[in-house]
């Protein structure tokens, strides 16, 4: 609904297929279900670096013009 109102919205989630069915446009696979932008297996420093990378990818998705709903590759 956020995109319907004209704001690009990147969705970070472990459940990309559900996001697709629900109609999200910019979907990124991220983390696990209970912590989409967290990775408790890493050290706090490494986790922060990883999270920043995930948010950076989401921002790239926001800035990328797309024609239809897509799951962005983990680039």
């Amino acid at each position, binding site marked *: *609904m956020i995109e319907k109102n004209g704001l690009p919205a990147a969705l970070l989630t472990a459940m990309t297929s559900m996001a697709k069915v629900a109609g999200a446009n910019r979907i990124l696979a991220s983390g696990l279900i209970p912590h989409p932008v967290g990775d408790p297996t890493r050290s706090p420093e490494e986790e922060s670096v990883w999270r920043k990378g995930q948010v950076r990818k989401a921002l790239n998705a926001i800035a990328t013009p797309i024609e239809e709903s897509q799951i962005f590759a983990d680039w």
Partner: protein
Amino acid sequence: MIRIAHYINQFFAGIGGEDKAGAPFEVREGAVGPGRALEMNLDGAGEIVQTLVCGDNAFHEDPEANIEAVVAALKDSKPDLVVAGPAFNAGRYGLACGAVCVAAAERLGIPAVTGLFPEAPAVDVYRSRIVIVPTGDSAGSMADAIVGIARLGVRLAKGESLLPADEDGRVPMGYRANWAAAEPVAKRAADMLMAKLRGEPFISEVALPPQAEAIPPAVLAVDLSQATIALVTEGGLVPVDNPDRIESSSATKWARYPLSMLAADDGAGFKSIHAGYDSQWVDADPDRLVPLDAARELEAEGVIGRLHDYFYVTTGTGTTVTNGERIGDEIARELISEGVHAVIVTST
């Protein structure tokens, strides 16, 4: 020989159009109008013994009295089957057909069938109670409608039970019937999966809900380095006393909290009240749900213009699509009014 009573309106009885919609209820012997086509389609297996006619306005001016008249006429003729319409996309006529079928089936135990356009108002009202053959939206589809009604009507008149809606060629009534399958579910599921992998056709045993409407992707209105970005989540992260009483499931509410409050959090001020996932990792470090630390760094580096001062939250478990859409809509409108250009959403 199947004996049929047929209900039609003033138009199909040849009385007239809208100017004759006040024509009172009457009973005629034999087939009238579309009833003749229906009889021909039965190919000698059935005959229309009685045609019940009522004007569209007249019916709805006193539906109870007209239904009593219909019931009395049916008690008199004792048909094996009642056919009403088809009424296609007509409003008043369709509703009258629905009421006639309900009266026949529920009060007299006579099988009844009508024909309606799937989006006709009467379908919503009566679909769970009566047998409806889907038709086109106008009488231009009369020939196909008659074929469908005749085929299903004959089965019902013979006392046969309903088959699955698509096999019967009728509108689904909204309930599931038990049936004995030839193969156990694991075999059927594996066969379906193999068919899918091979690209072969297969039929799901569970009807999927309608797919979400495709939303044309939005375009970022400014350069990313100039953009105001907001953080939104359905992960239920709220101040520990949950001041806005967001539900832990089936949410109807959303709230926003200042990022400054989250940043100052020592780890005990926020928690997730979301009932659909184990929140221990998020409770220990809310950045794992609302990536404030990362977003602040990217703001400081100039990757984005600025971060919106609040994060927005609801609970996305068991939430109805209607509420989810409303919540998304309300959040989006507030973000737009506050000059936000784009959103990062996290979902558990």
